[in-house]
């Protein structure tokens, strides 16, 4: 079975590098985008199995990107983890309101983030074979 594919979206290139490496080490195929608009394009062309999505980004922020993904029948099944520097309860509530499946605040542990990705993929697709 093909490896699960993760789309990482963040305008901070360092965070993209960190996630690319950490998820790559776990055996995932990683594709990346630097803003919400690029992310929506990549979702169409790459059809990822899960998305790790920053919130504060140029062009289209993570909330709006998530909302659009979750309101489109073609993409609403894709689990979304919001990964953000916005750490207040109200920010997290807003994240879940727009349909996010999980919310992780920065600073974060790459190891723990990978665990959450594994868990969410298992939860949404119990038959999945990990890479």
């Amino acid at each position, binding site marked *: 079975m093909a490896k699960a594919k993760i789309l990482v979206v963040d305008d*901070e290139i*360092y*965070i993209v*590098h*960190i996630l690319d*490496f*950490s998820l790559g*080490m776990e055996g995932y195929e990683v594709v990346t985008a630097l803003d919400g608009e690029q992310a929506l394009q990549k979702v169409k062309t790459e059809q990822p199995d899960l998305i790790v999505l920053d919130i*504060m980004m140029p062009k289209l922020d993570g909330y709006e990107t998530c909302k659009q993904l979750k309101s489109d029948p073609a993409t609403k099944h894709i689990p979304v983890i919001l990964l953000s*520097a*916005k*750490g207040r309860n109200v920010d997290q509530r807003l994240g879940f309101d727009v349909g996010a499946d999980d919310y992780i*605040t*920065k*600073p*974060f*542990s*790459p*190891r723990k983030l990978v665990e959450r990705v594994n868990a969410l993929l298992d939860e949404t697709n119990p038959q999945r074979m990990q890479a």
Partner: protein
Amino acid sequence: MIRPPEPDVRHAEALRDRFLSTLCHELRTPLAAVGACSEILGAGSAMPGSEPFRRFQDVLSRESRRLVRLFEALIAFERTAPRTPGDGRAPVDLAELLAEAAFLLEPLAESRQVRLKLQACQADTRIQASRDQLRQLVLHLGSNAIQFTPQGGAVTVRLESDAHHVSLEVEDTGVGIPEEALERVFERFYQVEVPFRQGAGLGLALCRSIAESHGGDISVVSRIDRGSRFTVKLPRDRESQHEDIRVTTTKSALVRESGSAEPPFIPAETRG
């Protein structure tokens, strides 16, 4: 936009709360990068000498420096940010203050081979103000203008005055500010993407905060590859400062290449 009236102290406290909240947010990203890289390097999952190893070392070093810049900016902000309107105000002659700032900016201008010109104003340029805060404002606008002006360019600092206001203008023949960035340059932590960016993105936010606490405002017009002009308009008397703080807004405007009703702002002798 007109704010509903509220006690001045509460307004000043609200500004400080907003600043601290933004700072906490801005600290999280470099902290995330430093923490995550330390974890990856500590776990030994990136082989020493490998490309990922070098990349994470580089991230550690860059983001540590970013944290230091944020910290330094916080210290500078705490030292000079207005606490309550009217804090430490005394009569200040802006012409004198500008001459002092020009003296301090001259070495930077010389090192970057940028001409620094001071255009004084014959009218009375005294206002009630905090000298330290206005000095910080002029130095920031001046050094910013010099840094964003290529070798051979010019930065002009001038004063204008009417019955109610004294305006301070800092104009450069530099790289200009992109249209999409114009509306945001006074936001805290916002930075225009340039290859040589420095600082933490707090300088112009601090300038706005200082101008507003004096009952004034700050605005900018800019043309790509032609230059930018920042204008700080300050009321003369303390009474109007007290009132205006509730109603001032910060404006940005763009002078377009053609078809603009705005008068050209770059003096002929500094063009090209």
